[in-house]
């Protein structure tokens, strides 16, 4: 059993860095860059993103198609997905002493489910198995900017991403802006209550990355290095 260097936040020997923000906020780019840099520094790094695991992605797709999903089941399906990812790919490296870089974490569920009208206390209870990260970065950016980035990179806006199931607007872009606006408002709120580190993500990539590196340095002070290892989970 590895017992040295327990994190003051969650007690595991590894470290947990979380990247949160709207789609198109630049968090994935930054997470990948930080992971590379950490590995180059000689840390054992495990990077993972929250996109659907095999187990439930088919179910979510099927449920979406049939229109079977309600805010409650939608929330639970994502919780299953996260729990599976957590039990399988986040917890083991955290216990093994890795620096785990998570592109999206439980906060994603808190804001999305709140925007869908779920009881926030209930959602938090469900995710109470997820330990508090050493740092959670919130990449703050106006919804308009994410929409422009999406359009510029020709990414399609999905039905659920636009919150079309909530009937906010008949128009996909309009609904997207309203729904993502709700999510942003919730992010802005919990960033304070959950003591997230707010990153102004309207800036270019380089200064943001530099800021992140300075932010994690103190957390990693005295943290053991191993053979440089980067795992993209």
């Amino acid at each position: 059993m590895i017992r040295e260097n327990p994190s003051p936040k969650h007690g595991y020997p590894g470290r947990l860095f979380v990247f949160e923000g709207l789609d198109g906020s630049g968090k994935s780019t930054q997470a990948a860059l930080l992971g590379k840099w950490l590995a180059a520094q000689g840390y054992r790094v495990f990077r993972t993103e929250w996109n659907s695991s095999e187990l439930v992605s088919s179910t979510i797709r099927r449920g979406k198609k049939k229109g079977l999903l309600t805010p409650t089941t939608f929330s639970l399906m994502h919780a299953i997905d996260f729990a599976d990812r957590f039990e399988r790919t986040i917890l083991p490296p955290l216990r093994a002493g890795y620096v785990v870089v998570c592109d999206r974490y439980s906060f994603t569920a808190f804001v999305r489910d709140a925007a869908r009208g779920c009881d926030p206390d209930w959602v938090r209870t469900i995710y109470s198995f997820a330990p508090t990260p050493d740092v959670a970065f919130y990449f703050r950016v106006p919804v308009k900017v994410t929409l422009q980035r999406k359009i510029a990179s020709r990414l399609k806006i999905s039905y659920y991403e636009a919150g079309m199931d909530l009937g906010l607007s008949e128009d996909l872009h309009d609904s997207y802006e309203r729904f993502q606006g709700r999510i942003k408002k919730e992010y802005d709120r919990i960033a304070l209550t959950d003591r997230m580190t707010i990153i102004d993500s309207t800036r270019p990539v380089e200064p943001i990355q530099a800021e992140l590196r300075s932010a994690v340095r103190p957390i990693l002070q005295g943290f053991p290095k191993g053979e440089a290892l980067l795992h993209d989970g």
Partner: protein
Amino acid sequence: MTDRTYGTRLPGLPSDELGGKLIVIEGADGSGRSTEVALLKEWLEVEGHAVVDTGLRRSTLVSEEIDRAKRGHTLGATTLALLYAADFGDQLENKIVPALSAGSTVLADRYIYTLMARAIVRGASRDWARRLYGFAFRPDLVVFLDARPEILLHRSIGKYGSLDYWESGMDLCLSRDLFESFFLYQDRLAREFEWMTREYAFHTVDANRRPEEVDSVVRDLVTPLYGRSPKPPVRRRVRPTPPGPAASA
């Protein structure tokens, strides 16, 4: 709406009072639950009530995934607990609530309590399980069929020809021996049902008896829900003695 559920508001549900009745039959595998559900359904329908029956793991949303997960045995305890919760949520919103809104009686062959007990014996905290299922509707009546482990054992063997892997809790690795695991597992489940009996006001019915006897007790519990007092026990109709040599003698 929070008074209709166990504390968590369900978004997007009708706010008006739902007319139907929700009756839950709980009990271990082999407690005679399914038999009782069938008998009760038949009787309620004869009495003129529209009955919708529901059980666990029958929704279209994730039942396939649960079956697949069980075959592979690769899921963590939290993930599996949430899969069952999603399955239940799907049934609640797409089947139970619509039926209640239509004024039907919903007869549930097991409910959140079995799911909670299973999750807890696999490592979830009681508090987490209780709050996870906070969105469930409060039943009008919960009947808990209480049968001795030996009775469960015999009925289980009678049903499967052996003991079921999951109903014996073999995934918990309590014992490599199926028989021993069965007793250890049932004992742990029983311990969870014990606190839930108080917390959720179960009506415990002694199920170490024949189905008709159990059914008669359950009917007496169900009858007041429909605003009537329990009927006196049905007397068996005495068949007229057939004419024959014995009669004439």
